[in-house]
């Protein structure tokens, strides 16, 4: 289904259309996916930080001066 210069997601009537229009539900899901990716990236950042500290442990103080 073509709406102006865009097509509704899931319809392939006009492959040359410049954009895809999403329904409110699809937009909500897209937003939730984006949030989930952001949270995952943040969690990975924290995970690598904690892992580094855990792997270093007390060895960080155990070095010749």
């Amino acid at each position, binding site marked *: 289904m073509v709406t102006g210069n865009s*097509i509704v997601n899931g319809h*392939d009537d006009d492959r040359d259309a410049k954009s895809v229009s*999403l329904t409110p539900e*699809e937009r909500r899901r897209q937003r939730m996916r984006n949030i989930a990716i952001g949270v995952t990236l943040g969690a990975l950042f924290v995970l690598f930080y904690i892992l580094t500290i*855990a792997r270093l*442990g007390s060895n960080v103080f155990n070095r010749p001066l």
Partner: protein
Amino acid sequence: MTAVTEAWAEGERVAQGAAGAPLVSTGSVGDFISLLKPRVMSLVVFTALVGMLVAPGTVNPVVGAIALLAIAVGAGASGCLNMWWDADIDAVMARTRNRPIPAGRITRPEALTFGMTLACGAVFVLGIATNWFAAAFLAFTIFFYAVIYSVWLKRSTPQNIVIGGAAGAFPPMIGEAVVTGSVSFDGFVLFLIIFLWTPPHFWALALVKSQDYARAGVPMLPNVAGQAATRLQILLYTLVLVPVATIPVWRAAGGPVYAAVAALGGAGMLWLAFSLWRDGGDRDSLNAHGVRTAWRLFGFSILYLFMLFAALLVEHVFGWSTFGAMFAGGRLW
């Protein structure tokens, strides 16, 4: 973009358009999580944790938790890649037709990308957190499940779940590899228990769902060799499984709780498998008793495996595995 990439992208676009697939993903976060088969993930985490606890050594608890997370994500990646490959089968089976890919909420390329990303990430994190042997083992397990089982064996041989079951049996050995960087005989026994448990467990389900599998063209044993032959195979595998499940007792890995679970649970498994074989039906079909017993065996086998590993977990957390140590102290082994 190169010409090759452009051609590929155009091919994908046309293929998806022809299938009526959405141009932009419509999957919810929950759909992506369900691609990871969370229930299978929880079993993998559980058995890997037991493998870590039974291992002769210790690991920093934070590193251990991160390793478990990596193993869980690796298992989820396997499940995702399995659903990517098996979308056509899933679409015709009642049990699986509402999964995100056959239901049209997530496209196959999305699932493939998601699964490969998670697989690479899980192996990398396990490698840098623990050791590269454990990471390589996880990579091999993902490969074994996604390629050896899903792509190759599942559609080509009735022994699919026997050999493919190894993928589900590797996690305790990965857990041990996380701690020690190697695999011992005790870790191998835990692998063997799950490996031998898989055929009776899945064939009990396949007996009841044989028409579903036949419609999907999956050569499960009941469709190829018949119902009676499958019931006999279930009994034979159970006869091997039950004694093997007692090995941890003689090896000091299991204590009195484990011994009791192995004995009582083993007796239950044997009784159900024997009853299914003897009174379950004729050569080509199950009778009402057979259907009932197959469902019971399917459900009980889950409880049996869970209890065996839970017993090991509890004993190693509380240090109760002295009964096994008494026997393994040179007197019986």
